[in-house]
């Protein structure tokens, strides 16, 4: 049978009719595909959460070098400039003693006792400091040893990296662990999802093995037999994709505030609303591919003439 418009329409119609008449089998197959696609969508969400969480945690990590109280503003600025020129440093922020006091006062505005204590003290008890942030959190260790050995180490009173060191290395471990684990979990679950979907579609088609045999005996070409099944598979995919979007978005909407309460920088609702088009394409193309590929492989097994 040659490939023309009339045959194409016929094959699509026939696939749609098969789908309607196989509604129970179709229901099961679509159910499995929905599960598979939900796993994919869930993995996307998981990746978003872990990535944003790690980024926000890493952003919070920095090194603060407190300067001795006798260091002048000018000297401090020079040091800041030198450090800022080291590669791998994303920025250096100089906070003068006055600025530190200002910030301190602002932070404790409501606490009268502290305000009074500062007033009674007469002079500024705070040190000037340099907030240093590196592009990669692994740089901090070498940055600290550089600061300790540098010519201006005499100006530095103390570096509070050591207090953060355990936190930093723990975040790094979690971060790389999550990335590797996420990829592994994604791989394993996708293989399982594909196998289950394939098997379900195969069973659906197996139940029509005799029909395929009869079509062959009546002289139907392979394309004529396979076409409706492929269309049926694509319809499974489209419906499964639709169901996934209908299930997934409310879940995101409901869980997003909870996750945000836990990790403030993660806003799943905003993320998935922003990427709705991409999610739509991703879910539908995955669903259709899954349905079509499974059908093609399954029918092929019964089309040996």
């Amino acid at each position: 049978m040659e490939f023309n418009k009339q045959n194409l329409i016929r094959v699509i119609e026939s696939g749609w009719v098969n789908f309607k008449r196989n509604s129970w089998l179709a229901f099961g197959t679509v159910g499995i595909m929905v599960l598979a696609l939900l796993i994919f969508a869930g993995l996307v969400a998981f990746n978003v959460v872990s990535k944003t969480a790690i980024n926000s945690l890493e952003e919070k990590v920095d090194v603060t070098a407190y300067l001795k109280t006798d260091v002048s503003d000018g000297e401090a600025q020079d040091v800041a400039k030198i450090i800022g020129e080291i590669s791998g440093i994303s920025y250096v922020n100089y906070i003068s003693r006055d600025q530190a006091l200002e910030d301190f006062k602002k932070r404790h505005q409501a606490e009268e006792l502290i305000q009074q204590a500062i007033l009674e003290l007469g002079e500024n008890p705070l040190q000037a400091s340099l907030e240093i942030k590196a592009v990669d959190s692994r740089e901090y260790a070498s940055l600290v040893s550089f600061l300790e050995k540098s010519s201006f180490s005499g100006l530095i009173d103390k570096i509070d990296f050591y207090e953060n060191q355990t936190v930093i290395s723990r975040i790094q471990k979690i971060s790389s662990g999550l990335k590797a684990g996420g990829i592994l979990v994604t791989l394993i679950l996708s293989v399982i999802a594909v196998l289950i979907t394939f098997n379900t579609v195969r069973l659906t088609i197996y139940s029509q093995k005799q029909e395929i045999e009869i079509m062959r005996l009546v002289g139907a070409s392979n394309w004529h037999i396979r076409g409706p099944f492929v269309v049926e598979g694509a319809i499974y995919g489209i419906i499964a994709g639709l169901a996934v979007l209908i299930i997934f978005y409310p879940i995101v909407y409901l869980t997003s505030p909870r996750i945000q309460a836990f990790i403030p920088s993660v806003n799943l609702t905003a993320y998935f609303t922003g990427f709705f088009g991409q999610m739509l394409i991703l879910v539908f193309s995955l669903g259709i591919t899954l349905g079509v590929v499974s059908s093609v492989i399954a029918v092929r097994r019964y089309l040996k003439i």
Partner: protein
Amino acid sequence: MIIFDKVTKEYNGTLSVPNGHAKRGGNQGNNFIFRALDGVDLEIKDNEFVSIIGPSGAGKSTLLKMLIREEAPSEGKVLVDKINVTDLADSQIPFLRRKIGTIFQDFKLLSSKTAWENVAFALEVVGAGPDQIEDDVSKVLRIVGMEGKSQNFPHQLSGGEKQRIAVARALVHRPKILLADEPTGNLDLLNTYDVIKLLMKINEFGTTVVLASHNREVVNSAGRRVITMDKGRVVKDQEQGKYAI
């Protein structure tokens, strides 16, 4: 024109069948060879009406299966319209089958399609247009007297009704050759007579009909060429035959 040229069909099997069934072939250890056809030479001209008779297992069905390449011969050649069916490439087999209408003993209707769709399928396969399908299917369903049940599924039809649909499907694309393998095996006398009348009418319009049957009434009412088979061989070939076994 159909020609069978020294056609032999053998099946290999292991000895799970009682010995008596395997006596036609050689018996070597646990393996035996079952010879369904044994050097069949046969020629069927265009527009002939041929009945093939013989007891169960005589090779009638195997002979018909060769014509649509459902089975390939172990030895010999089968020619349909000068085409050697034996050498046909897989991709060419559907074209052979579209030239031939087949009525199967067990109907072989598509259970997920309605009566109308079953008949229409044979036309879709040959690439007919929607208008032609609409016209021809209705016409053929009227001929076999099934126009009232065209929207029924096979499981909603009786044996006789299913067979009429099967006949309609075999006819609708106006094949040059019509094969009927025990088309009346599941029918009562009245339905049997109707089907045979139908086959003869089709033959009058110029279609070669090959009818395999072990039903005396069927063959005698046709009163045409009768080929008698037994144990995979053609034992008798009469131009104006009667059922005689």
